[in-house]
């Protein structure tokens, strides 16, 4: 899952990115509204964390313009403006959630998780495909025999495919969602990650969960989505 952070405070921007990365998200971060809008227009982010008081282009204008370009990325406004009118204005401008600074990191992570889940059409915190259960809150993949231990890159790939179960994604699309812009990505990185996940799943006694659709990409649970 790839998240764009648009926040003018460099310290907050970096610590947020650090925390979200640690929580398993790929993050891009920018400090002004204009570059934030440019990023959001060209990359299909799974979520945007947006400050309102931004240089060059304020957050509300950015949001309205983004919605004008028919980009439906979920947006979580993170602002020091705490008045009801500010929150109402933000939500009416197209935001999906509003969190006032200062905030608790666990609350932010819960909201991020809820927003991404909702955006993918997942109604509960548990996604079951075949013999594998994905607990969104605990960030764990489980089988009847126990947890499937996955490194961050593999986890991000499987999480993305689980939350978009039934949909086929090309290598480029998967790459866009699981790698941040500042990461060096090799051309076979997605194939390598898919192979790694398949090995881990096989070790856990799970059959071929990730289907390869020749010429199209990869897909999980085309017929069995919970």
């Amino acid at each position, binding site marked *: 899952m790839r998240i764009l952070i648009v926040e003018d405070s460099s310290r907050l921007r970096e*610590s947020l990115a650090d*925390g979200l990365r640690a929580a398993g998200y790929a993050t891009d971060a920018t400090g002004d509204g204009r570059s934030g809008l440019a990023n959001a227009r060209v990359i299909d982010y799974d979520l945007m964390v947006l400050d309102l*008081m931004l*240089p060059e282009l304020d957050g509300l204008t950015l949001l309205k313009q983004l919605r004008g370009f028919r980009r439906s990325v979920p947006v979580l406004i993170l602002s*020091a403006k705490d008045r009801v009118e500010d929150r109402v204005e933000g939500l009416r401008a197209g935001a999906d959630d509003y969190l006032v600074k200062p905030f*608790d990191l666990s609350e932010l992570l819960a909201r991020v998780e809820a927003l991404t889940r909702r955006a993918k059409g997942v109604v509960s915190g548990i996604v079951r495909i075949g013999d594998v259960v994905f607990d969104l809150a605990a960030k764990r993949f489980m089988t009847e025999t126990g947890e499937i231990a996955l490194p961050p890159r593999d986890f991000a790939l499987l999480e993305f495919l689980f939350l978009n179960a039934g949909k086929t994604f090309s290598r480029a699309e998967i790459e866009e969602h699981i790698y941040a812009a500042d990461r060096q990505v090799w051309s076979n990185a997605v194939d390598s990650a898919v192979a790694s996940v398949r090995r881990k799943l096989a070790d856990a006694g799970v059959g071929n969960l990730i289907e390869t659709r020749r010429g199209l990409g990869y897909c999980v649970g085309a017929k069995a989505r919970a």
Partner: protein
Amino acid sequence: MRSIRTSLLRQIIIGVAVVLLASGAATFLMAQARLRAQLDASLISKVQTFATLVIEEPIHPEQSAEGGTAHGELVFDFKGSIREADLGALLRIATLDGDILAQTPEWPSSLVAPVSGPRESAFKGQWIRMATAQLPDGGMFRIAAMTFHANREMEPSSERIGGLAPEFGDEAMMVGGSRHLVVAAVAGRLDETTRSEAALLAAIGTGAAIAAIGTAVVVTVGVGRGLHPLSALSAALDGVDPAGPTAIAPCNSCVRELQPIEAAINGLIVRAREALERERRFTDAAAHELRTPLAELRTITDVARRWPSEQRRAAAVDQASAIGRELEELLASLLAISRGQRDWSEYTRDPVLLIELVREILPACVAHQTKGVGLDIAGSESAAWALPRSGIAAVFRNLIKNALEYTPRDGVVRIAVMSTAAGAAFRIENGPVSISPEHVERLFEPFWRGDASRTDRQHCGLGLAIVDSMCEVLALDRRASIETGRMLRIELSLRHGVQSS
């Protein structure tokens, strides 16, 4: 607590009481004088009447032949009763030698008719004296005493003296022709007059009391009604919502005298609301400004705690320390604005040389400036302001630091001190800046971050707000503008009417 109603009532009632007392006393004294005058006139009239009835009888021819100096006998030619009940007064007629010709039986022995002293009137040998006598038994009398020569009855054939005797029927009478001096006294009791005066006094007192009570009632009601608009104004003030959009609603029943007060109160309310609104905006801005560093602090520490690593922990400590320093700066700036308005309310007026002060504070301002901003200082060495040195220094320090901090790399800051006809002036320019002219005044609002250069969190956004606050206290006129070459210019001069050095 003093009350207008009580004060008005007290003053009006005391005033009315004094007027009633004075007018009552004047009325009584005039009436008393009139009563006494009437009594005196009555007594004088009576004594004059009785005096005409004292006659010296003609001298017998033999007596006249014997010496020619004999006097006739004095008689009181009155046939009626001279009792007090009949006369309404006491009567005593006697010669100057004390021979009583007539005397009311009730005439007290201790009552003496005055025969000397000031005379009430004198006419052709008649002298009337008035006196008031108090007897040992307490009785008070008013006496009219007339000393006169009795009339002399003449024989028809007798010689007439001076031709003064008028004719009364068949008898010839010489008025005052007798050589006997007679004292006729009529005394009237003052008891009746005193009773009349007491009754008059009681009537006046009763009238005054009724008038006083009536006045008190009328005044109380009148004052109450007259002060009703104050109560209405008070009720209107009670109904004013401190956060409401309007002041006191127009008072239809307001009296003319209260309209200026109402207008003044409305003005005060408007000013107070504006001040409260400014304070609210300032507090909002301050709270808003605190939210981001607090969010930074919490996120940094939360991440470090949730995913602990030595690198994260060290970074979190460093960043928390930096945030603490920034919060300190924010606090100091807020306090500078708050305290600035009272610390220099009283100050000495020693002239401060402006260029000297700029040179003094400049090193500290440029100490951390590493952007290669050019600095140009020029101006009059003698230009000075008679203002507190610490206040001017604070203004200059904030202006110079602001200019250096918000001037881009390779930009320029120009400082000039000028002596003009209107007095000394200070000017600072920096640029190029990306502020539009319509936003220039907003630079002086607390926490305003209008352009890209002003959005970093290393600066609290209060420097120019402090300048603005201090200029107000120091009575300095401040002008800001965007000049050619996108230079932000801020000029300071003494407010018109403030003495320059």
